[in-house]
Each structure stands twice: as structure tokens, then as C-alpha cells.
């Protein structure tokens, strides 16, 4: 008698089908997830934009937080020196993340010079707020490195299970932004501007002169920060990565500077290089009253000065080729022009190209207006040989209307009922070359009389 044959084969087929379905489902979820992350065009632009750059095409990669992308502007570096240097920098970055970002960047830019901001390690702990962890993780490409970084952040910050799940699967937290996808996924200007910072904040001015000092003291490094820093140095050493550490000139406390100074000693001891911009502060010609947005960040005027200095440093020290006009870097030329246009109404014409000095900004007096004539007057600045009078109308480009050695200028035959803004830039001659001092970018404004 024939035995009834069971069909385990059917079970096996069902199991295979179920397994295959799960794989396809997971892949679909991971693909969709790549669109969802924290609301930060900086994180998105800097991390995703980095992947769009051709492998091996970058001269340098800056790694850090806002102490990087609000000090170094890649498109100024490009415009002035043809240096392609990307800000692989994330807001409020944790020291834990630096090594992992470095590891990620090296995959596509193995030969670049890696410029790491030492300011990331100035704090008293590696701990970061949960929300900031998303800035770092959400837009990294899916890889074992990203998983390890996420794990390290969860462990280092003792995030809860729900927080950890959301870090591994950001779609769980940010799927709520589905109706804004068009605005920030497909229109990320941060990417178009090659990780150059672009926001109205760049025009703010804050006087940080009282809180700024240069300290040579040495501080104690907290254990958790020392650990991650040691791991970073070991990683760089083991993988023979070309690294330059930079101390960015923030108006931070003596304690924080002390920690950075101690770390600098360790860097030099291990045979790495460190550029201390505090020591070169005078050469930067940064104006503490007019070039900072707050104690940690420069405004656009400060950014141009710092980018100019750093760009020159990179060219001189590392022999980077000027690639402006080359076909392979067309996109950089295009972006630099667009970025310049974007900032045109904020930047004075000499800022990017002319020599700078440390003559203080003249104190501007209130404008005297009579009909369609405006009289601009100001107080003398020590060291100034002459003064450039710059004028702009609201949102239009600054224009130098005259150079004078007087402390007053009468601007006549202006348009009626029009608002004009003036600022005065002190000038002197340095090594036979005209150099421009500090100025108040907000200027002083007034509206003419008369009838239109």
C-alpha cells in the first residue's frame, strides 16, 4: 500500500518566501529611511553632499562641529586659492564621533588632508544631547561604521532604549517630516554651496572682545575625552592618515583653552601637526568687535579672513594645486560664483582680495540729512592714513564712493525718499600695498527727504 507522502517541501518553500519577503521589506525600509532624518540642512548637505564629490577629488576635509563650518568657508578657499576643501562638519558634534566621521570620509577621499578641529575636545565631557546625536548619524550612509558610531553614541550618552531605537532607525522619529521632503531633500542648498554656511546669521555682529583671551595654561583632560582622543590619534597613526589639527579662535574660557593646549602637546608628541590660530591671531586680522556672531562663531567678514588665512596656509604648507577653471572641478567654480552672488550685498568689495590690517573700526556718528544730501562723519582710528567711504542701499551691494583723509564726507544728489547705509573702512599702506582695517558691517543708515 502506498504511504501518503507529506509535503515538507511546501513548508520549505513558504519559509524561503517569507525570508525573501523580509529581506525585500528591510531593503525597502532602509531605502525609504535614507530620506528621513533630523531637520538640519547643514547635516544633510555636509554629509550627503560629501558623497556627491568625485572620489579622490578633494584636497582637504575639515572635520568638526560648527567650530569648523562657521569659520572655514570652502567656497572662499576655492575662489581665492582653488583649494577644494569640504566641511564634513556637523552641528554640536560629540568628540565620540570624530574618529567615525574620519573613517567614513576616508572611504571616498583617502588622499585628502584631514583637518580636525581641536575645539571639539575643549569640553568637560563627551556627553551630548540626544537630539544632537541625530545630527551626526541620520545622514551617514548605511554601513558598519555608522552602526558602530550609533552604538558608541548610545553607550557613551546612556540614551534610553527608545532613543537608541530612533537613532538606529531615524525614520521612527522623523517620518513626521514626510510633507516637507520636497523642500529639504531635493533642494538642499548646503550641498550646492559645497558645505559653505549660508544663512542670515552670517551678518550678525556681536562684540566678544571682553570674553576673548589667549591663554597658554595647560588643563586636565577629562578621562572620557582623553580616551576618545587617544583612540583618534591611534587610528590616524595606524592608518597613516595625513592629519592637521587646528585650534579655531573662539572666545572660550581659560579652562577650555587649557584643555586644548594640553591636547596640542599630545598631538606634537605623537608626531602630528597642530596649527594654533590663537598664536597667529594678529595675522588673521580678526576684529573682536565686528567679526563674530557669538563667542564660538564668526560672521561672514570673519569667515572670509579666516578662510583666506587658512587657504594661504594650505597652499604654502601642502603645495595644493590651484584648480580653478579645470573641467573636473567645474561645479566648484559654478558654486563659488553663486555663493558670491548670494553674499554680494553683505560683503564689501575689497574683503576677499585685499590685504587686511588691525586698525580698529572708526566710530560712526549719526548721519546728518538735509533733503537729498547726507553728511557722514566719524572718529579717527589710530594708524589710519585714509578712509574708504562705502555706501549701499537696502540689500544692494556695497560700493566705495570715495577715499578721503578727512573725518567727514558729504554725499549729494542722492535719490529722494531712499534709505542709504554707510560704513567707513580705515586704510593704510603696508609694504607698498594698500591694506584695509576693521569696519562696522551694520553701518549707519538714514533716509533722504525730498519727493519722488
Amino acid at each position, binding site marked *: 500500500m502506498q504511504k501518503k507522502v507529506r509535503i515538507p517541501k511546501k513548508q520549505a518553500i513558504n519559509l524561503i518566501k517569507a525570508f525573501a519577503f523580509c529581506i525585500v521589506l528591510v531593503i*525597502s525600509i532602509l531605502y525609504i529611511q535614507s530620506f528621513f532624518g533630523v531637520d538640519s540642512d547643514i547635516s544633510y548637505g555636509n554629509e550627503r553632499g560629501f558623497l556627491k564629490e568625485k572620489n579622490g577629488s578633494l584636497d582637504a576635509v575639515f572635520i568638526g562641529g560648527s567650530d569648523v563650518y562657521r569659520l572655514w568657508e570652502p567656497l572662499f578657499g576655492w575662489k581665492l586659492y582653488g583649494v577644494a576643501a569640504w566641511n564634513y562638519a556637523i552641528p554640536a558634534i560629540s568628540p565620540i564621533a570624530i574618529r567615525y566621521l574620519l573613517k567614513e570620509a576616508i572611504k571616498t577621499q583617502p588622499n585628502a588632508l584631514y583637518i580636525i578641529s581641536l575645539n571639539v575636545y575643549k569640553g568637560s565631557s563627551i556627553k551630548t544631547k540626544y537630539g544632537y546625536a541625530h545630527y551626526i548619524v541620520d545622514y551617514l550612509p548605511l554601513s558598519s561604521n555608522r552602526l558602530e558610531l550609533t552604538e558608541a553614541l548610545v553607550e557613551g550618552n546612556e540614551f534610553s532604549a*527608545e532613543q537608541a531605537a530612533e537613532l538606529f532607525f531615524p*525614520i*521612527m522619529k*522623523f*517620518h*513626521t517630516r*514626510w*510633507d516637507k521632503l520636497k523642500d529639504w531633500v531635493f533642494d538642499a542648498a548646503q550641498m550646492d554651496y559645497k558645505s559653505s554656511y549660508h544663512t542670515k546669521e552670517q551678518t550678525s555682529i556681536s562684540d566678544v572682545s571682553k570674553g576673548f583671551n589667549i591663554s597658554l595654561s595647560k588643563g586636565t583632560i577629562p578621562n572620557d575625552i582623553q580616551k576618545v582622543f587617544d583612540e583618534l590619534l591611534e587610528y590616524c597613526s595606524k592608518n597613516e592618515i595625513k592629519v592637521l589639527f587646528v585650534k579655531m579662535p573662539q572666545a572660550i574660557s581659560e579652562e577650555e583653552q587649557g584643555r586644548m593646549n594640553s591636547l596640542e602637546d599630545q598631538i606634537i608628541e605623537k608626531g602630528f601637526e597642530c596649527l594654533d590660530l590663537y598664536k597667529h591671531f594678529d595675522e588673521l586680522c580678526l576684529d573682536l568687535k565686528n567679526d563674530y556672531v557669538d563667542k564660538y562663531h564668526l560672521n561672514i567678514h570673519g569667515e572670509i579672513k579666516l578662510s583666506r588665512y587658512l587657504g594661504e596656509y594650505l597652499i604654502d604648507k601642502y603645495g595644493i594645486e590651484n584648480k580653478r577653471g579645470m573641467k573636473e572641478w567645474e561645479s566648484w567654480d559654478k558654486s563659488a560664483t553663486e555663493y558670491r552672488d548670494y553674499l554680494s550685498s553683505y560683503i564689501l568689495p575689497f574683503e576677499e582680495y585685499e590685504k587686511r590690517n588691525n586698525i580698529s573700526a572708526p566710530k560712526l556718528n549719526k548721519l546728518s540729512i538735509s533733503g537729498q544730501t547726507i553728511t557722514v562723519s566719524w572718529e579717527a582710528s589710530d594708524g589710519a592714513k585714509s578712509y574708504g567711504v562705502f555706501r549701499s542701499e537696502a540689500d544692494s551691494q556695497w560700493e566705495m564712493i570715495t577715499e578721503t583723509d578727512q573725518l567727514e564726507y558729504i554725499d549729494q544728489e542722492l535719490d529722494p525718499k531712499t534709505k542709504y547705509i554707510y560704513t567707513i573702512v580705515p586704510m593704510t599702506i603696508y609694504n607698498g600695498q594698500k591694506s584695509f582695517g576693521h569696519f562696522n558691517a551694520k553701518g549707519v543708515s538714514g533716509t533722504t527727504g525730498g519727493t519722488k
Partner: protein
Amino acid sequence: MSIISIEFALFVLAAMLIYYIMPRKARWIVLLVGSYFFYWMNSHWLVLVLFFTSLVTYLFGLIIQRQIDKNQEYILNHESITRDEKKNLKDKLKKKNRIILSIGILLVLGALLFLKYFNFFGENVNVLFSSVGIKWTIPHMNLLLPLGISFYTLQAISYMVDVYRGKVTADHNPAKFLLFMSFFPQIIQGPIPRYSQLAKQLYEGHKFNYNQICFGAQMMLWGLIKKLVIAERLAIPVNYLFEHHTEYSGPILFFAVVLYGFQIYTDFSGGMDLVCGVAQLFGIELEKNFKQPYYATSLEDFWRRWHITMGSWMKEYIFYPLSLSKAFTSLSRKSRKVLGQFAGKRVPVFLAMFIAYFCVGFWHGPNWKYIAYGIWNGTIIMTSILLENIYAKGRMLCRIDENTFTWRSFRRFRTFLIVSFGRFFSRAEDLPTALSMFGRTFKNWRNVSFVTNGSLLNMGLNNANWILLIFLIILLFYVDYKHEQGVSFRVVIARQHLVFRWAIYIIAVLIILVFGYYGSEYNAASFVYEKF
């Protein structure tokens, strides 16, 4: 542990794995342990109330059954017993069992009444006392309400009554009975199961059935879409409009209550789909609780399609026992003498119906608005029964064919309106607010510009969300329409090519993932009916 949480999903996965690994005879133990673990995670020490109710129900079922068995044994052993003696014995048994049953019901119902309604009674008694000058007050007590108590109490009562009626034999296995009372998918918000329908399924271990598990998972997906994508999204404008109701009248208030109708439907039926889907993963079929309620052609029909297990429970354990009782039969006779045949016949039916719907309302919560809700539904149904003949004559005069699409559509629309107005009572904060909103709905109907003047965008949802909602509600009604025609979408999809099927399932998962209201960016989504 909410049933729409990752913890619950992991719990179900683990429970399934252990269930199918265990020998079939022992699989019910997995369900029992899982159910009590689930209840503990949600209610901690209040699990003792569930345990107490289950124990009392079990014991009283046994006691009643023992009386029945003793009686049957006596009759079997005494063949010479006469018919009259048999009848006397049966009557005695019935009387005795009725007392036992009453005590049992009192005990389990007492727990529910005390924990859920004590403060309500207290407040109302205090109002009454103060109006007559009595200074003594009943103190307010901080009582914790065990999860699902309103559901499992009805379940317990139905079991005891079914044993009393001889419909089922009492369960002799206390552990298995504990499982019947605590089965985790349905304990929080139903459906209210019958022992005859559920027990055997729970106790017999089910074979692993791939298709059944797939179907269960698909049902869960649909439930999650209804709950997380539609219901939670609708909650935003509904909550806004009901919180700011004093600023509105006319069409906006009506719009609010219509939205609420969709919200409660998708919330509750979505929960049911989830619950039934989870049960199906273990090879267990729970009773359907919804049957396309917005396709009902009358309010009576609506209550046969909405929260079906509660409606049938009320019918079987309140309405029929009352309307067929001696007292009501006697009332019917007396009413016919006084009021005539037509009215007299209906008085006991209407009284039973009134009590049943009163109980429906009261069951929903300790608030006069819920009672009003029940009375509204009962009154409309009674009125339609009373006016049945007049309606029939009217249809004849107007030559209306009842079987046409237009007439059915009109009836559905009319039922929808009646149901919607009734929802003021269940959704408003309290009865005075409900009555105020109800009244104001009839004003200012000339101005319907809120649809186009941007007011909709001030209710917490932007354009994209409204468009998504409209699309999904249309999809929901289309699916219900197909179900009304007897077409099962799950079966239709299952017949399609593998690629198409997988695409549908993956899209469903992604819809939940992307559009669902879950996660830390939203408040935790809890079910409306969970609080019962």
C-alpha cells in the same frame, strides 16, 4: 505595553515562537502565561481583579453546573419519576440556580460597578443630598480601573448565564478557564467572546499554518493603517474643534462630529483588526465586531454592524431576558388592555429596549452624556418602529421602490446623519456641552466658507495631511464597499502574482512607517476604547 508598540510586537513574536515550538497539547499554557504576562505589564497588581473575577466566574459556573448534573443524575436514577415531579424538580433547580447565578453576577458586576461607577454615583447622590439639605456626602475615592474590566465582566456574565441556560457545560479546568477570561489580544477592547465560540479554539493547540499567519499579519497591517494613519490623524482636528467648540456653530460643528465618527470607527475597527490579526497568528478566529457600519440603512441595522459583540450581548442577556420575562409578559397583557393592541404590544418591547440601550450608554462610561447617548439611540429606534407603518404608507404613496440604489443611498445617508448627531453625546466633554453643540449645529448654515477659506488649515493639519486623509477615507469606504458586496480584499490580493502581492504589503508597511502617528514626535497613540 500598548498593542501598537514595538514591545508588543516583540512579545507576540516571542509568544508565537514558543507556541509553535511547544507540543500541541501544551500550547494553551503558552497563551495563558503570555496573557497574564501581558496583563501584568499593563496593569500590574490590578491583575488580581481579573484573577478574582475569573475565579468567581469559574466557581459559580461549576456550582450551577453541579446543580444541573445532580438534577439530571437524579432523574436518570429514578426512572419512575412522574412528569409533574420532573417539572417540580426542574423548577426548583431553576430557582436555586437563579439565586446562585444572581450572586455570581452580583460579585463580578459589583467589582465593575464599584471601581468604575462608585464616584459617579457618589457625585450624583451628593447633588441630590445637597438639594434636599442633607449635609452628609459620599467621599470621592481614588480608584484604579483595571484594563478591560468592562469587557471581561460582560464575558464573565455571559459565561455564567450560558451555563445556567445549559447552552454550555461549565469548564472543569481552572487554568484553561483563566485563559478564556484573559486571552491577551481581546482583553483590552474586545470583541466580547462567547465561551462556546472561543474556548475550544484556545484550548486546542493549532498547527502552524503559513497562510493563516499571513492573513493574520495582513489584517494587522490594515488595522495599523486605520489606527495609526487615519484615526490618529483625524484626532487632531477633532480635538481642536471640540476644545474650541464655543467659537463655532452650524456646518463646522457638524463637520467636527462627522470627523469624529470616522475617527472612532477607524480607531475602534483598526484596533479590532489588530486584535483579530494577532489571534489569527495563533490560529484563533475571534468574532467580528464591525461589519461596514456606515453602510447601514437604519439605526437598528447600524447596531447590528457596530460593536457587534456588545450589541448581541445586550440583546441576549438584557433585552431578550427582559422582554420574555414573566413580568414583561404580564405588562404586555395589561398594556394591551389599557392602550390597545398596537401600543400595548410594543410597551414591554420598548421598555426592554430602553433598558438595553440605557445599559449600552451606561457601559460606555460613568457620565450622563453616555447615558444620553444610549437613550438617543434607543429613542430613535423605538420611534422608527412606531412610525414603521406610516413610513411604509408614505413610500407607497410616493411610489418609492425600496430596492433601488438611490433609496438605499438615501437611507444610508439618513442613518449616517442620525448616528453623527448621536456622537455629540459620546464625544463632548459632558451632557450640557453635548446639548449645546447639538443645538448650535442647526445655526449659521448659510456660511460654509470654512471649506475653502483656509480655516481647515488652522485645525492642526496642513494641506498635505488633509489630502492624505481624504484619500485614505475614500480608500476605507471603497474597501468597506467591497466587503459589503462579499468580496474579501485579503483573498483578492492573495490570488495575485507574487510581485504584485509583495508590492501591496510593502507599500502598506511603508504607509504605516511614513504616515503613521507614532514615535516620540507624537504623543503615544492609545485606543479610545481602551479606557473601558
